[in-house]
Each structure stands twice: as C-alpha cells, then as structure tokens.
C-alpha cells in the first residue's frame, strides 16, 4: 500500500497537466483566456456521473463519450460565440466577458441536468456528489492512479507526434505562429482552429470524467478548478503546450505536497488554504517570469552557471597555489 499523499500527487498532477494542455490549446488559437474552460471539465464529470449511476458504466468506459461531448461543446462555443464576436472586431475584454457568460450558461445547463436527474432517477446528490468508486485496483491502489498519468503520457505524446510529424500539426503550428502567412500558403486557418478547440474540449471533459473517480464533483466542480488550471497554464507560459503540461504537474504536485507538509506541521486548519498555493505560484510567475517556465533558456543558464563556477574555482586554485609558493 502506497502512502495516500503519493497517490494524491500522482492523480492530481496528471489531471491538471491534461487540463492545462487543453486550455493552452484554446489560448494559442484565439488568444483569449477561456473562463468557460472549467465547464468543459464539468461536462466530463456529469457524463461520468450520469452514465455510472444510470447504466453502471465505469468512467473509464464513458471517458470517450465525455471526450466527444466536451469537444462538441467546445467547438460550438468557438463557432457560435467567439468566432462571431472576433469577426465583428470585438475587443479582448469583450471576448473575455463572452467566455464568462458561456461559463454561467453552462452552470445553468448543469443545474437543469442535475434537477432532471433528481426528479427522474431520485439522485438526491446530483448537485454535489461523492467520488465514483473505481472499477479496478492494481497492487492495492485504485486504477486511476495508473490511468491518469498513462493518459497524460499518451495524450502528450500524441500531441507531440501530431504537431511534429503530421501535415495537420505543421499547419496548426503555422496558423498559431502567423495566421496571415498560413492563409497565404493555402492553410484553412479556421478549420485548424476548430480542430484545436475540438481537442481542448475533449481533453477537459476526459480529465473531468477521471477527476470524479478521485474527488467530489458538482455543478461548479469544474469552474472551481480554474484557479489551478490558469495557474498551470500561466506557469507554462500560456504559449507552450509542453510548458503547460509541466505547469500542471508542478501545480498539482505542489498543491498536494505543500498542503501535506503544512497539515503535518501546523494542524488541520490550513486545509482550506489549499487553493492559495496555485494562486501564489501564479502571482509569483506573473511578477518574476511573466512568460512562464519555457521562456527561460535553461541550457544557457546552466552553461553560464557552470562556466562561472569553473572560473571561480580556477581563481581560488591559483590564489591557493600562489599562497603556497609564498608569493604576495
């Protein structure tokens, strides 16, 4: 049996990596922070909840359905709201408010859905529900502890292969880097953006359906996670897909581990401040490294430090040798 905080860290970090990856995809294409992204996660939560409670389908089996539903929601939001507004030349702030509006509308839709579940199937916990029991265990730990990191690995690898090995991926990169130039060489930029939003909504809903295997979900379950998701994406630089995965891993892990240490040292009252950790990381990132982790040239930093240390050691060595020879 592994310690609880280790499995917590693994699940939390992997899921936030997955969520941050999707958010970054939407930010890269439309350059708007998508406040409705948390609701895509909630779509996954409710898909898993509904199918498990009504049909006893395990969330692992319903994850693909969640993926498709989230993707459809995401694409319709992009086509139905954001593209219309940006074609009319709306400002960035208007687009941000529009995404907030979509989030509120989604909360309304989840409310109606949960009311429906309550009245039709008498699920009294449909507004706020406990985690769904895992369908398998391996070596004494729940299956999600293995599935979450493996899914993150597969998704990251697939996105990497897509972006580097396929024509569509190259077209995506081109559309993000320079949309007008991409149009000139005949890339259908709009279609590429739709595809990016499709993937983003899918990843969000998929992570949502995994999330409820580990933690409680509810109407605002996904919206409440946007602190962590945005923090992860900002930490990764908002412009780098791999950076956002790294950011999600760091945010998820530090939230669990720092809270664990604080709980042990200071007592149970610190538990409620758990969400302060991603917020603090976000503030520090914005003030110190506004372009995120991936903006730092780590190799140059490392080489610079290395040569600095080496020259310092040489100087020290020479002065010791001089002293030993009795020179002044």
């Amino acid at each position, binding site marked *: 049996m592994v310690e609880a905080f280790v499995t917590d860290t693994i699940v939390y970090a992997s899921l936030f990596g997955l969520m941050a990856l999707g958010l970054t995809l939407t930010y890269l294409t439309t350059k708007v922070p998508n406040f409705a992204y948390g609701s895509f996660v909630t779509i996954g939560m409710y898909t898993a909840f509904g199918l498990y409670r009504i049909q006893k389908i395990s969330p692992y089996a319903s994850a693909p359905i969640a993926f498709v539903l989230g993707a459809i929601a995401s694409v319709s939001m992009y086509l139905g709201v954001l593209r219309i507004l940006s074609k009319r030349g*709306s400002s960035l702030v*208007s687009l*941000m408010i529009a995404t907030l509006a979509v989030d509120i509308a989604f909360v309304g839709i989840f409310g109606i859905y949960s009311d429906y579940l309550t009245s039709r199937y008498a699920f009294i916990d449909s507004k706020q529900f406990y985690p769904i029991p895992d369908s398998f265990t391996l070596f004494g730990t729940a299956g999600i502890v293995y599935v979450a990191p493996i899914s993150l690995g597969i998704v990251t690898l697939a996105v990497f292969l897509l972006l580097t090995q396929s024509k569509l991926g190259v077209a995506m990169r081109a559309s993000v880097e320079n949309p007008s130039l991409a149009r000139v060489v005949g890339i259908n930029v709009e279609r590429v953006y739709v595809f990016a939003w499709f993937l983003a909504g899918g990843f969000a809903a998929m992570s949502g359906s995994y999330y409820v295997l580990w933690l409680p979900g509810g109407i605002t379950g996904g919206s*409440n996670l946007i602190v962590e998701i945005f923090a992860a994406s900002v930490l990764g630089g908002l412009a780098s897909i791999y950076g956002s995965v790294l950011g999600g891993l760091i945010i998820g892990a530090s939230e669990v581990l720092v809270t664990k240490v604080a709980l042990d040292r200071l007592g149970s009252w610190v538990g409620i401040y758990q969400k302060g950790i991603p917020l603090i990381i*976000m503030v520090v990132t*914005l003030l110190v490294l506004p372009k995120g982790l991936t903006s730092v040239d780590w190799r140059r930093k490392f080489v610079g430090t290395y040569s600095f240390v080496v020259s310092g050691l040489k100087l020290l060595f020479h002065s010791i040798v001089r002293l030993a020879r009795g020179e002044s």
Partner: protein
Amino acid sequence: MAIVPIIQLFGIDVVRFSIDLLTLYSLFLVVSLTLNFEAGYAGIPNFGKVMFVAAGAAAAGSASGQLAALILSINTHGNYNGYIYQLIPQIDAALSNNPGLSIGLLLFGLLVAAVVGAVLGFAASFPAIRLREDYLGMLLLASAQFFQIILSGYEPIIGGTQGIEVPNVFGWFFGDEIGVRDVAVLLVLGVFALLVFLYCEKVVRSPLGRTLRAIRDNEIASRSLGKNDVAIRRKVIVVASAISAMAGALLTFYLGSVGAETWTRVTWTFWIWVIIILGGAANNAGVALGAFSFTLLLKAVDQVKFNFQPFIPVDVNWLEYIMFAALLIAILVVRPDGIMPEKPTLTLPRTALGHIMESNANPAENERDEEESTKWTS
C-alpha cells in the same frame, strides 16, 4: 407609526415590488458605476469585483457588531461569533431607541468597509498596472475565487459558511416593521447611489476624466505628455474598490446578516458586467439606464418565476442564468457599444464657450471674461 400602503395590480403588490426594485437598483448602480470607472474609463477589466464587495460586507458586518457590543458593554464571553444569536437581539433592542448610535454604527461600518476596500484595491493595483488585460483578468478572477474560500473557511471573520447576523441599524426609524424598515433602507441606499453617481459624473468630466481616457486609449502618447499613468490607475482602483466595498456594507446592513454564500461570482461580477455592456461602457448615464433595465428584467423574471415554477420541472434560476448569458452575448454581437455608447464630453458649458468666443472677437471686454473662463476651466 407610518404604514406602507399596499396596492395590488394584476396580483402583484406594486409598492412592495417598487421598493425591492429600487433597493436592488441602487446597489447595482453603485457597483456598476465603480466597475465602469475602472473598466470603462481607465481600461482596467476587473473580473474580481465580487471580492471587493464581499470584503466590505464582511468587514462592516463584523466590525459594527463588535463595536456595538463594546459600546453597550454587552458581555461577549470573548467569543463574539460564538454567542452571536444571543448578542444581536440585545444590541438590536438597544439600537431601536438610540438613533445616534445607530447612525454612528452605520457610518462606522461604511468607514471600515471603505478602508478594507481601499487596502484590497491597493493590493490589486500592483498587478493591475503591470499586466496585460488577459493576465489581469485571470489573476483577479482567481483571487476572487480564493477570497471566497477564505471567507467561507476562516471562521473568525464572519463565522465561515454559516455567516453571522448584523445589528439592525434601521430599527429606530418609525419602528421595526418590515415594510417601514425597507423604506428607510431605500432612502439611505438611494442617497448613497445618487452621491456616487454625481461623484462619478464630476470626475469623468474633470481633467482627470479626460486624462483617464487618454491613458486608456493611448498609454504611450499620454505618458509622453507627462501623465503619470501608474499613479492615476492606482488611484482609480483604490477609489472604485472602496466605494464598492461600501455598497457591500450597505447590503449587509439591509439584509441583517452576512455569510460567504451571500456573495456569488454570478451576481457581483457577471451581472455587473452585463449591466455595463448593456448600458454602454464609459458612459455613466448609460450605465444608470443599463442597471435599471437589468434590475427591472431581473425582478420581473423573479415575479413571473414563482407563478410559473409549478409548471416547469426545473429550477427557474438555472433558466435565468442561461437567459442572461444569452442576453449578454446577443448585446455583444448586435450592439457592442450598449444602449448609450460613449460620447465625447463637452468640457465647458455652451454659455462659457460663447463668452470666450465673444471675448476673442471683442478684445475690449477681455478682462471680465477672462475671469469667467478661468473659473470654468480651473
């Protein structure tokens, strides 16, 4: 003893409806005017408005009750929140025949709220003057989320999710009947809203208002003209946050209680934005009109809702969410500048301009008119 009349019209109590409508309107007006001040005129999109309103409410609710207990020397057993259900009736009884102390407590609560709001606004100004709109939006939204978690989790402030009761500072006003008390609240709120409106109008028509727009529209150009954009933006956030915290304090005194659940992102961030977009950003009259249309719509839906609820299987609140979200997006698509778009302000009244033009044409009268024109421009 004054009694509020009851006039029935189509099964709706018109007086009751108007009082509720105007009370909510005054609150929405104040908060949306401050958001308009920040987002419309100064170009700082504040997506964490709920944080400032809730902070003012919590501070005023907690501080005024504790001060009242201290002044009336009521034994709190060293645990104000714990004994709140015994303390508040005692305080209310003492306040109902002590207008001086009631008004004093109200003003004290407003002052505390303003100070707390200003401090929070000052803290928020550090990222607000550095970050781009999208980063700032994310940060403020996330901060507001965290702030609400603290309010609901940290019990010493307002007793966590349970909330605390707040002294009734309107009890002395013609008795304690429900209708009469609401009229008293409406008077206070209406005066407050009017003052805030006049203040905002005054500021945006002053040289400072024009500087704000200059900074919003072209930061570099205004900087090259020697305007200190950082200091001015900071001032705007601090003032706007202080005023919205005071609005929160007033709502707390009206409701008679304050809890972490009272303040939701939907009502105090999203709906305020709907009002601004509906009325027209950077136009105070537009925002006033937007706030009124929105509040009327909200209250009308509330009225209809309870008549139709039995026929609809779902909670009508959810339909309300979807309806207002759709309304906002529709406005953004159809009329992005709102009902009343921003207008260039005429800086001088026409008569003063006429005098200046005349004096230019007729130099003999220069002396008298120069006095006049400096009076207007200074």
